[in-house]
């Protein structure tokens, strides 16, 4: 395992930010760490890199127990926590140089390699204060890659990236995992995580509510949608209510058919169809495809939702340098 936490707890005054978290991040995979705003994702990452001390619990990093004073273990970890931070008056290249002088011994040639890897070589001589949000994000990833780490912790890495940048980041992270690296990505851009992650951990109010392979999570999808005529909605809701789960009818304000959402795994679509047919209701359509967003919402009950839907562009690398801020 790349990361194992047991009973990890962080308290701020009377508020439990992280409550007995048990994470299992396997090596060589992309782990999607999801949760609503304020659920404890960033607090967990801060504990994993020694920025803050846990109140309780144990952390193992790369197979060894880890404490916040064990700075040499950090040499094998690359991290971008919260928004990327730089010296605004230095160029992108100089920022990387000064960060390369800290922590893990880093050869000078590595600076140019990571600039190439994140597609910033042509803007490396510009001061960071002139960089767009997306460029800063890429430079933050470059800093995380400086020591060629075995484990990469990225907090919202797709923030501010354009579609081409998101695709390029995904390819870069895939390339890294293909070479045996482990990547933990904290994000609220669920479509992006769905495409990227092998394993998912969902945290809500500081507690882990689900952890497992993405494929298994989606296979046991959390909703089925059926399309019925508006005048049949009430009867359909009653019929589907026999499943004993939440049934959410769409507002029947239009003249056409409306969707009803049933919070059951997608493999129960046929059961839904049968229950409707028994009442003489014949659905126009049944959608049992499951996405991470619906799973996430069902697990977190929509708490603190602030999710973006990222559209993906063509795989054209990091794209052109974005407009200056």
């Amino acid at each position: 395992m790349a990361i194992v936490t047991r009973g990890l707890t962080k308290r701020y005054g009377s508020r439990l930010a992280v409550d007995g978290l048990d994470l299992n991040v396997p090596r060589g995979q992309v782990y999607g760490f999801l949760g609503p705003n304020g659920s404890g994702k960033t607090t967990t990452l801060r504990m994993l890199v020694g920025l803050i001390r846990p109140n309780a619990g144990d952390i193992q990093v790369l197979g060894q127990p880890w404490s916040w004073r064990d700075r040499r273990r950090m040499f094998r970890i690359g991290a971008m926590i919260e928004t990327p931070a730089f010296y605004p008056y230095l160029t992108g290249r100089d920022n990387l140089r000064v960060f390369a002088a800290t922590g893990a011994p880093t050869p000078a040639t590595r600076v140019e390699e990571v600039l190439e890897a994140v597609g910033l070589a042509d803007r490396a001589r510009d001061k960071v204060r002139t960089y767009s949000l997306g460029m800063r994000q890429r430079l933050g990833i470059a800093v995380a890659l400086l020591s060629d780490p075995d484990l990469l912790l990225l907090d919202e890495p797709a923030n501010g990236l354009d579609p081409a940048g998101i695709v390029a980041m995904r390819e870069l992270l895939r390339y890294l995992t293909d070479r045996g690296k482990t990547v933990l990505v904290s994000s609220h851009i669920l479509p992006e995580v769905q495409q990227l992650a092998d394993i998912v951990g969902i945290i809500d109010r500081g507690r882990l509510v689900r952890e497992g392979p993405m494929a298994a999570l989606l296979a046991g999808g959390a909703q089925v949608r059926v399309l019925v005529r508006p005048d049949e909605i009430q009867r359909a809701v009653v019929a589907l209510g026999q499943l004993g789960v939440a049934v959410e009818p769409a507002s029947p304000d239009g003249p056409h058919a409306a969707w009803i959402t049933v919070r059951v795994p997608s493999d129960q679509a046929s059961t839904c169809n049968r229950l409707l047919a028994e009442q003489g209701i014949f659905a126009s359509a049944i959608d049992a495809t499951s996405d991470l967003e619906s799973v996430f919402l069902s697990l977190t009950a929509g708490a603190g939702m602030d999710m973006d839907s990222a559209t993906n562009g063509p795989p054209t690398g990091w794209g052109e340098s974005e407009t200056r801020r």
Partner: protein
Amino acid sequence: MIGLVNAELLKLRRRWASYVVLLVLLVLMTLVYVLIGLTSPRGGGMVTNLVIQFPSAYAVINQFIFGLGSLLAVSYAAAIGGADWNWGVLRVIVARGEGRSRYIFAKFLGIAIACTIGVLIAYAAGIVLTFLGAALAGTSAGDPLAGAGGTTLLHSLVSGVFVLLQRAAIGFAVAVLLRSQVAGVVVGIVLYIGENILSTILLAITFGSSVLSGLDTHGSQWFQFLPFSIGDSVLSAATPSSISGDLSRAALEPVALVPAALAVGLYLLGALVVAMVATERAEIA
């Protein structure tokens, strides 16, 4: 550690504050020396000659560089020390596995090197400006190295840099404790000026009581050991012609060089330890 210090020097070289602080000092010095040269009688008067003739001119240069310069050094060190917190870069550095104390120490070493270079440049400028002032006043500045001039110059530089770095360390520690460059600069300046005012008031009270009791001078007073005041004792002892030293010596027995230097060293060390411990214990959010 060398790599860390080099990185700090790169940051300081690229930062405008490094040049602005020195420029402010040089511009003020130039203005004062030009005004002295232009307003003094031809051939200079007795007072003018004290300012623009060596070796007494060293006292004026010291006053500029280690008096006003100290205030600038406190501000500069606070601005540099607090910037890492303001910009959030400390969390990047800690997350890369850098030792917190080690980093803070390297950061101060960088500031110390930059301040020392600044003092050398300003001191050289002070000597040149003394010649300029003398030329404008139509008199000779004399030989800066003649007689005890060379020794005074050396003592001034060594003791002055030592005191200036101690004061910079206090500004640095304040900014690290407050985790803010602006708060560090403001509080550093307030402490520096506040202590000067406090010392002046206490000196006046002590002087008044010595007059009333018919004593020529009092022994050393506790307020002479305050963090910024003790540096004046070092400067005064190392360069006997210092103006501040002459004023305080009128009422107080000056603190001897060795205990004064020890106290300055302790304050310097204490400020660094405070900055390092504060950073070690900090939860970086």
